[in-house]
């Protein structure tokens, strides 16, 4: 397709961001661009960045929607801090995103969108394309709307439809810049628009025209080449964290033989899990969209009692509403997976932004002494694995498990090496056998303190459970003071004993050194990258990233002792750090926090680590 040989610039990694009005089709352009990157073997991570409103007023900052793609020929850990190529379809999107563009970044704009009104609406005093404020960038000014309409004039398309495909023109320009093959996208159109064949041709023509235009104007003198990444052999796919979570739950259900029940209520950014599971009735998944968050979890508790692998999915405010019911599941000692896709809080907070501020709520947010297992995923890809493990631990230990992910993991996508179900760890729930003369509701396995799961309908196991305190072993209602002490200790002991069944905490780097960087959950990519950078510079820094929060891995305390300083990095005001301090009161534990609804940037982390290393 390339007529002239262009010089090639090899890049190990590139960050591209598509921004425009919501409704400009930026999510689709971004997804298609990343799919093509995946096909040529790049590793990648993507993140959609959209407003809470479905369609905010046109051409306003509030209405800007974006999609970021980080692709590389080496392992990609984050969705990227600063952007190499910014596609800005209108003045508002340019204004909102210019701060993320590297100096010298390539910026592609649709000059047709930069009329006086739109410029003013975006809050610019002068046209940024003309006032010289973009001189330090490589700006490609293309009349994209006009050219799109022009390219379709032989097809007799109405203006509106023509304008709507301008995102494909911009994508065509990017394909030229990155020397991508157009054929996979053509194929994609053929699949996507099977029922509307006219759209296949429109999109093909516009994509090709964008490519041709870029070639004609020689949009960039050179090709940006990102080669294939060295990846473990296997079959791959792209996956978002929320899809991964949904699939992990389905996998655990299949492995355990317990049918999946999901009782949930829509809430950003967790809704995709509910929608995804609703698609998979062929796997027996029973998905109940409840009338509220409380009914979501309570239906799940009912289903759990009836023998299902029961789940409920939510985000922070929803977790608050579920608190009392989590207590019921703790008291009745029933398995239950509660997925909290965290977002900015408190209250409604920042629904589409990410935070790690629900940790206290997950650990402590209930009445009474009410411990649960808490697990956190750290990448979009491993949401699958940790959802699976949350379900496994919950069923095998007959207690609720809260899985913490967050909006970034949930919405973001990474490449996912497809596992085989045969290789997934076994799940063996402690099912009570029919007519077992020894069966008692609260009789326990002495090794892990777990009671048996006796399912209604089974002969010879009729029993009653409930939220009132129960007599140990027999399970009848009891207000005996000593019994309450025993049961309280047993419920706590049972969760503590989970530590015998989870892996020890790993350290990335040396087991001793000047600084141990501790993190948990969705900050893995940024913190890992920052620590690697420091280690390359020869600094004695190691990284411990936690997935198992309650209980902590058994070696946690010993591990912390190997370092002069410890810094716990999290996107809250210091919840994990205080939890660690409570468990391991050590004076050298410091913290680094950010609560802006934004992920950590690698350089802000390295700055902090360097500062800690320099301080005496």
């Amino acid at each position: 397709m390339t007529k002239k040989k262009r010089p090639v610039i090899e890049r190990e990694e590139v960050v591209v961001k598509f921004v425009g009005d919501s409704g400009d089709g930026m999510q689709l352009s971004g997804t298609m661009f990343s799919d093509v990157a995946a096909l040529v073997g790049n590793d990648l991570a993507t993140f959609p960045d959209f407003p809470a409103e479905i369609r905010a007023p046109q051409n306003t900052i509030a209405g800007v929607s974006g999609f970021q793609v980080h692709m590389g020929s080496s392992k990609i850990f984050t969705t990227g801090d600063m952007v190499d190529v910014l596609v800005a379809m209108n003045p508002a999107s340019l204004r909102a995103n210019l701060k993320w563009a590297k100096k010298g970044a390539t910026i592609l704009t649709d000059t047709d969108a930069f009329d006086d009104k739109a410029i003013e609406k975006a809050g610019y005093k002068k046209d940024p394309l003309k006032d010289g404020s973009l001189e330090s960038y490589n700006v490609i000014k293309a009349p994209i709307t006009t050219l799109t309409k022009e390219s379709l004039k032989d097809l007799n398309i109405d203006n509106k439809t023509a304008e709507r495909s301008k995102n494909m023109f911009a994508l065509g320009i990017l394909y030229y810049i990155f020397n991508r093959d157009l054929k996979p996208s053509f194929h994609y159109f053929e699949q996507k628009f099977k029922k509307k064949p006219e759209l296949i041709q429109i999109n093909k023509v516009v994509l090709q025209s964008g490519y041709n235009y870029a070639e004609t104007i020689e949009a960039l003198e050179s090709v940006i080449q990102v080669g294939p990444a060295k990846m473990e052999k296997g079959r791959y796919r792209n996956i978002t964290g929320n899809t991964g979570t949904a699939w992990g739950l389905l996998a655990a259900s299949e492995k355990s033989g317990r049918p999946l029940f999901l009782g949930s209520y829509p809430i950003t950014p967790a809704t995709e899990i509910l929608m995804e599971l609703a698609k998979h009735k062929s796997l027996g998944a029973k998905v109940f969209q409840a009338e509220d968050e409380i009914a979501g979890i309570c239906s799940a508790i009912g289903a759990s009692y009836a023998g299902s692998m029961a789940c409920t999915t939510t985000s922070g405010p929803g977790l608050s509403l579920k608190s009392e019911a989590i207590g019921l599941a703790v008291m009745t000692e029933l398995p239950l997976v509660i997925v909290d896709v965290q977002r900015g809080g408190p209250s409604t907070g920042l629904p589409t932004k990410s935070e790690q501020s629900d940790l206290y709520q997950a650990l402590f947010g209930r009445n009474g002494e009410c411990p649960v297992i808490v697990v956190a995923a750290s990448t979009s890809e491993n949401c699958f694995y940790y959802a699976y493990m949350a379900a496994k631990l919950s069923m095998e230990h007959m207690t609720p498990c809260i899985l913490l992910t967050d909006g970034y993991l949930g919405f973001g996508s990474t490449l996912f090496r497809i596992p085989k179900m045969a290789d997934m760890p076994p799940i063996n729930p402690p099912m009570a056998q029919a007519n077992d003369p020894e069966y008692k509701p609260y009789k326990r396995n002495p090794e892990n303190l777990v009671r048996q799961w006796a399912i209604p309908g089974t002969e010879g196991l009729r029993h009653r459970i409930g939220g009132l305190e129960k007599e140990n072993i027999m399970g009848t209602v009891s207000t005996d003071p000593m019994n309450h002490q025993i049961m309280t200790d047993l419920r706590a002991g049972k969760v503590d004993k989970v530590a015998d069944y989870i892996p020890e905490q790993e350290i990335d780097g040396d087991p001793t050194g000047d600084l141990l960087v501790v993190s948990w959950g969705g900050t893995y990519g940024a913190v890992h990258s920052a620590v690697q950078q420091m280690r390359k510079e020869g600094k004695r820094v190691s990284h411990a990233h936690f997935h198992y929060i309650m209980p902590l891995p058994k070696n946690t305390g010993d591990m912390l002792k190997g370092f002069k300083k410890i810094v716990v990095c999290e996107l809250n005001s210091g919840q994990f750090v205080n939890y660690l301090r409570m468990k391991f009161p050590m004076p050298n534990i410091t913290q680094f926090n950010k609560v802006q609804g934004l992920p950590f940037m690698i350089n802000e982390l390295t700055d902090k680590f360097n500062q800690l290393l320099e301080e005496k």
Partner: protein
Amino acid sequence: MDYVNMTVERSKVQLTKTDFESDQMVKWCPGCGAHAILAAVERVFPKIGYRKENFCIVSGIGCSSRFPYYVNTYGIHGIHGRAAAISTGVKIANPRLSVWMATGDGDSLAIGGNHFIHIIRRNVDINILLFNNQIYGLTKGQYSPTTPMGKVTKTSPQGTIEHPFTVGELVMGAQGTFFARVPDNNINMMTEAMFEAAKHDGTSIVEIMQNCIIFADKAHNEVTGKEVKDETMLVVKNGEPMVFGKNHEKGLVLRDTRLEVVEIGKNGITTDDILVHDQYSQDPGIHLMLAKIAPPNYPMVFGVIRSAMFPTYDDMVEEQIKYAKETSKIRNVDDLLNSGDTWEI
């Protein structure tokens, strides 16, 4: 649309009351109406004939909600107001269970009002025994959503200033398919209504006018009391005219758009003019009127007021799963993981 009519497995032997008696001490106050309800349940369960392991009783919080502990079946004593949601989960997870819910006017109409209307709207096949004693008993005497306006209680020393719910009206408003009203002093009527509820596919509400002997004693006496009940209670039977009075001399007719009480033999009224009860009518119009009327101008209607056939939520869940299993290419999680756009590296 075809429905999978799930049937609950029947017991191979004839069960009796003792099969359902639990070994727990029943801790309701002596003289509480709940004792009679328990007796009715222990009587009706063997009559229904399901395996004893296939009964599951779910409750919320309140005096009524201690019920699961007193019946030897599977059971969950839940949290306040949420019994409807818990029951829904039990039934969807295992439609082969006969799920019964014990709840009260506070549990289901105040804190659990949302779940109550939605379980009815969905028509999940659950039998709900609503103990309506018009008071909060377990917390010792505060007014509830069914306490008559003006009633003096511990939280309304000058009388309540709230309009009470009429349970039947709420049920019809939520598109209920089954509604029966029974007094706690008539075990036969209770047992019959519970049996009808068990037969009905869908959410069945049996409102039991229950006496709280401590905090709202004789609250229902103006209607269900021995001295007055002939004049104040109209017990409907399907296919029979709606008559009441000591000698069945009174009846209901529909005049214009309203029910009217008439005397048979006066003004040319004969038994043929009296409305005949059709509990199976899909149209809830008359059922709603029957549920709503009350003394002094009307009798209060008891018995099975509505029992209309509509598809149940749990049947439709099974139907959709069956269809998906027959038609989907994704038969296991390996299929799912490898579906769509994947590639080899």
